[in-house]
């Protein structure tokens, strides 16, 4: 059953729930303001092209028709690239469930990447919330770095430039702190009640 909470954006995510007792914790994408940089660059380059063509063809060659043709060509290309930027952002998702974390990045005609980490194989999970800059702090945009088995493997999964990064970081920390409740894991130390004053060390051996 799909668990709908405020950190899950609207959509049908049941396809990503593939394991028993798995439930969604976070489904999010990058903050919309991340689009501002590429869009402003694109607008600036288009504007520069329009101004240059107007200057070149109207002022230098006195040809309004060619200038107009070049301008509408630039507008067409601008709209196409605008759609591409928006679709690439829209199909870049971060999905965290109780059993796995994955990033889906789909760029039509170009690539489809699905980067997945199964938490069942991970013993130690550390979650760091990173935020820098005045604007990021103001709009609550930042990165969440999830480090798996830090002492040994140093494998880090980044949720980059997501919105509500602070609260999502806290939410994931709380949820993954209870991972032992979702599936049993061996205790490192336990008290051996059969013998007095003795603690036994317990560990799994993989062969």
């Amino acid at each position, binding site marked *: 059953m799909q668990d709908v909470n405020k950190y899950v954006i609207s959509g049908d995510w049941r396809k990503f729930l593939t394991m028993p007792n798995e439930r969604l914790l976070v489904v999010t994408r990058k903050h919309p303001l991340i689009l501002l940089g590429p869009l402003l660059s694109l607008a600036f380059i288009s504007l520069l092209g329009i101004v240059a063509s107007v200057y070149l063809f109207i002022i230098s060659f006195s040809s309004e*028709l*060619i200038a107009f043709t070049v301008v509408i060509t630039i507008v067409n290309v601008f709209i*196409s690239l605008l759609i591409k930027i*928006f679709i690439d952002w829209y199909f870049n998702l971060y999905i965290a469930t109780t059993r796995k974390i994955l990033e889906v990045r789909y760029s039509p005609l170009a690539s489809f990447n699905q980067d997945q980490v199964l938490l069942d194989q991970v013993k130690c999970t550390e979650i760091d919330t990173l935020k820098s800059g005045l604007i990021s702090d103001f709009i609550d945009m930042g990165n969440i770095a999830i480090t798996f088995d830090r002492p040994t493997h140093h494998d880090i999964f980044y949720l980059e430039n997501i919105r509500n990064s602070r609260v999502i970081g806290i939410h994931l920390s709380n949820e993954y702190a209870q991972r032992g409740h979702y599936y049993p894991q061996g205790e490192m130390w336990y008290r051996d009640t059969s013998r007095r004053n003795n603690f036994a060390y317990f560990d799994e051996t993989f062969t």
Partner: protein
Amino acid sequence: MMNIYTIFYALSIFTILSSVIFNLLYLHGAKNAEHSIHLKTPISIQRLSKLQLIVSLSSMLFISLLLLASINGK
């Protein structure tokens, strides 16, 4: 011999046609993602795409007339 007007008009039509084909293929790819990711393409993008299609077709029609006039030497 073709004059500079003809070359510019032909290049513009080619560029606009390329952007329309790219846009349609891109949106078709996004539609395919609806089956794999179960995420529908936003309405705003569909509207923007339709706008681009209308602007492109009208632009191409206009530039084609200019191209014809240029070829005929008017």
